[in-house]
């Protein structure tokens, strides 16, 4: 079955084969020494658990080794350039982590009396101040848990504002075809219908097509800027004016804020709402897929509809508005929160990291972040454009979009190219997104890379391109060869889903 040389246990040097914890069970073993349970009456109301849970027993050294070995099967920013377009995989400073673990910030409960958490509330207020200042917006809802959650917050604010104006019939959202999938998914969740608008030949929203779609049933236009083709939507102000004139709102997907932070304030472009992915622009770690944080800045027209909770800075210090009922008196009756999106007060641990990052960079450092990230992307584009095929003319913003025209007739696909990059020691770029070009390759190097690092990466892109054009198809089709796993059978995973480990006995029984 295997066509790679075998070893006795399957290990390959530093890359260890690692069984599941469930397959390493030493019954009765534990990695946590807890005191004996003192005698006391059972007050569980007859609901004491019957039978075992089925968890395996392992010692602490077993556990530390297991997860250390697993960690080594991951690519990470710490180990190399991570050019995933639209994901902003920048360096995660460790000072952020250290600060997030200060007991005065990590070991406090969200429902402690507010007088015992004044520093925490001040911290949230400071992050809010930075976000409002950087975006030029008057208000921010801090509680959304991630970017998509922020979209939900923004669109719900819009829906609530429209209903308040007696415009509840406005249900259509105009969304460019190049949008992230979360945009239409969110619109549907808020009861809106999605009306896609095409891009023009320059990779921007077709202004005429968009204008033609504006009408009395339009709730909002939802645009990513800089967009998912890595380009700035220069007509944003005009779009804002037109959608406002038509009675709708402008939602901006802020996933690509990193390209303009410290240089352009979205508030100056006429937007009404924008989420900010703290895990992108402000370096809170991605952690293998979260947690994120997605505060949403809001215009004056939407601010009254922001969800609870929020922090109020009064003469007696900081307090919290936690319920819609409490919103009235606290803000002189102007607040009409559309509800609550999340438990407690938002992703505090992410706020700590983001504030640490903001203070570390300052306004000067943040402007360099956007400048350096844009220069890095343009440098890659300029360095490969003679052999690969950029989809649109530059300059690009913080990511450059290529398509697969340069692979025409080579027998190598975008996916093959991506997998070959793994063998060269790189995480591939985002592939097949955005959908508006064929075989998309979206490269976002971020500001964290030195020129030397970018030059190595460019060497790999050019080298692989040359190999594809030289007909070395097998090298691509067989890739990756040097990763912990070769290509995985996704069809098999989806046809007969195995989503958890089961004891052998149960597995056998299930098969009968």
């Amino acid at each position, binding site marked *: 079955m295997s066509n790679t040389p075998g070893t006795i246990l399957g290990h390959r040097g530093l890359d260890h084969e690692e069984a599941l914890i469930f397959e390493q069970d030493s019954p009765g073993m534990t990695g946590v020494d*807890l005191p004996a349970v*003192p005698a006391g009456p059972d007050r569980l109301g007859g609901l004491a658990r019957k039978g075992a849970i089925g968890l395996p027993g392992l010692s602490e050294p077993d556990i530390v080794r297991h997860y250390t070995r697993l960690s080594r099967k991951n690519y990470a*920013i710490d180990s190399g350039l991570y050019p995933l377009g639209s994901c902003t995989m920048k360096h995660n400073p460790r000072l952020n982590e250290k600060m997030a673990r200060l007991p005065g910030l990590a070991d406090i409960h969200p429902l402690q009396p507010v007088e015992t958490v004044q520093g925490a509330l001040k911290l949230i207020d400071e992050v809010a101040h930075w976000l409002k200042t950087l975006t030029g917006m008057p208000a921010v809802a801090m509680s959304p848990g991630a970017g998509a959650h922020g979209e939900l917050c923004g669109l719900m604010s819009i829906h609530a504002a429209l209903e308040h104006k007696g415009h509840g019939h406005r249900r259509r959202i105009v969304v460019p075809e190049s949008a992230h999938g979360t945009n239409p*998914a969110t619109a549907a*969740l808020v009861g809106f219908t999605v009306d896609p608008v095409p891009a023009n030949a320059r990779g921007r929203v077709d202004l005429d097509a968009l204008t033609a779609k504006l009408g009395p049933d339009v709730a909002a236009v939802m645009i990513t800027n800089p967009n998912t083709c890595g380009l700035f939507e220069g007509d944003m102000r005009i779009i804002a004016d037109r959608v406002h004139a038509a009675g709708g709102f402008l939602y901006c997907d802020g996933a690509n804020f990193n390209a303009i932070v410290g240089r352009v304030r979205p508030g100056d472009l006429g937007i009404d709402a924008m989420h900010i992915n703290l895990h992108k622009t402000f370096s809170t770690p991605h952690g293998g897929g979260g947690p994120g944080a997605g505060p949403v800045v809001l215009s004056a027209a939407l601010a009254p509809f922001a969800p609870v909770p929020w922090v109020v800075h009064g003469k007696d210090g900081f307090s919290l508005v936690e319920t819609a009922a409490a919103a009235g008196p606290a803000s002189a009756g102007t607040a009409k929160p559309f509800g609550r999106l999340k438990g407690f007060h938002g992703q505090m641990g992410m706020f700590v990291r983001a504030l640490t990052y903001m*203070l570390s960079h300052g306004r000067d*450092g943040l402007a360099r972040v956007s400048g350096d990230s844009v220069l890095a992307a343009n440098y890659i584009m300029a360095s490969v454009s003679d052999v690969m095929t950029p989809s649109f003319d530059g300059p690009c913003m913080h990511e450059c979009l290529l398509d697969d025209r340069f692979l025409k007739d080579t027998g190598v696909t975008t996916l093959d190219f991506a997998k070959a990059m793994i063998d060269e020691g790189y995480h591939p770029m985002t592939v097949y997104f955005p959908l508006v070009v064929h075989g998309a390759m979206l490269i976002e190097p971020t500001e964290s890379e030195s020129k030397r690092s970018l030059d190595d990466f460019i060497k790999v892109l050019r080298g692989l391109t040359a190999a594809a054009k030289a007909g070395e198809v097998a090298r691509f089709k067989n890739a990756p060869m040097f990763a912990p796993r070769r290509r995985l059978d996704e069809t098999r995973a989806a046809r007969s889903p195995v*989503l*958890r480990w089961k004891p052998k006995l149960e597995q056998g029984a299930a098969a009968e």
Partner: protein
Amino acid sequence: MRYLPQTEADQRVMLAKVGAKSVEALFKDVPEAARLKTPLDLPDHQGEIEVERHLRALAAVNVSAGDAPFFVGAGAYRHHVPASVDALIQRGEFLTSYTPYQPEIAQGTLQVLFEFQTQVALLTGMEVANASMYDGPTGCAEAVLMARRVTGRKRAILSGGLHPHYRDATVTVTRFLDMEIDARAPDPSAREDLAAKIDSDTACVVVQNPSVFGQLRDLTALADACHAKGALLIAVVTEVVSLGAVTPPGAMGADIVVAEGQGLGNALNFGGPYLGLFAAREKFLRTMPGRLCGETVDADGRRGYVLTLSTREQHIRREKATSNICTNSGLCALAFTIHVALLGEEGMTRLARINHERAGALAKRLERVKGVKLVNDSFFNEITVTLTKPATAVVSALAKLPILAGVPASRLFPERAELANHLILAATELTTDADIEALAVALEKELAA
């Protein structure tokens, strides 16, 4: 700037390659009017020393849980997290990796998710679990939407024992959809009859166990009543440690289980990031929200893991997706997984029994305090008591000592005057006899004053 590696000399060479005069010139597509002309009113960059001083000053103002006898719960719980958990999650390969879109170089994250899904299924007594949601309340809202998809019905009944943040997140998410949410009045002593409310338009009943007031109840009859009428039973667990001692919702007939996983592996963090656990019956698999990790083989036939069934998700289904969720709580799920792995069967059950015993000791001591009355007839590690005075004032007075005495019910239910004197208190393995004694003495004094 320590985080920015491009030198001025590098930038000159790079700009020459690009054919631009300056970095500023690369922003030529931004209309002149939209470019910042004056510096923002924010400070300039600072070194680690200054930044750390700033953050430490903010932290120093707070009373942290370790500084005082601590009884605050109501949806977030302070447990001991073994040192190795934090050491392992800070490995850069876990901390600084992204969603495992390239499975060949993300087997670490993926195998962890597979172990996580298995642990969650085992603890909740369910067949399948996803790779996590933002937190318990958002998971609860997603569960109600899922019940709507499964049943095609529009009505959801929320128990009066449900944490108000779970209730509110659900009401909010369904607000602009064609749904009717029947949120029952707060029910400290678990007397409500939810089965009687189920009709042929009911998609689901949502019930929390233990309730926000700490009360336990057998869900079996309610599950049967739901199923008899074609509705789903959604069980919510806000204290995941309880699953080590209490009959899991899966064994009582629940169709979907939503839990807050913060209590294992994760700090209080002032409310987030937390970890939504989401488990269901296998027959509902394809209507589940969120990421799922599945087992498969690679081109050499070796076992490996991938994200699977992603046709449910937003990046493929767009407006037809089961949910708009993209991010999960990966790192919190990793911490949970490692903590549960360290505990094992022996540790998990012992931890739960210690928590129960501690709450028993707390209840027993408080029942001897004049002016305090226990509401619960059953509990796991959290109890509700009534005081002879409004709980908010009592809690504030005790906070000055400092003793963090619990959550006044009025903080969660400000609109309910009848709950003004109710106080919700949690005990965990970190609660000492001395803590309990200090609380009892202070309470007695405050209530007598």
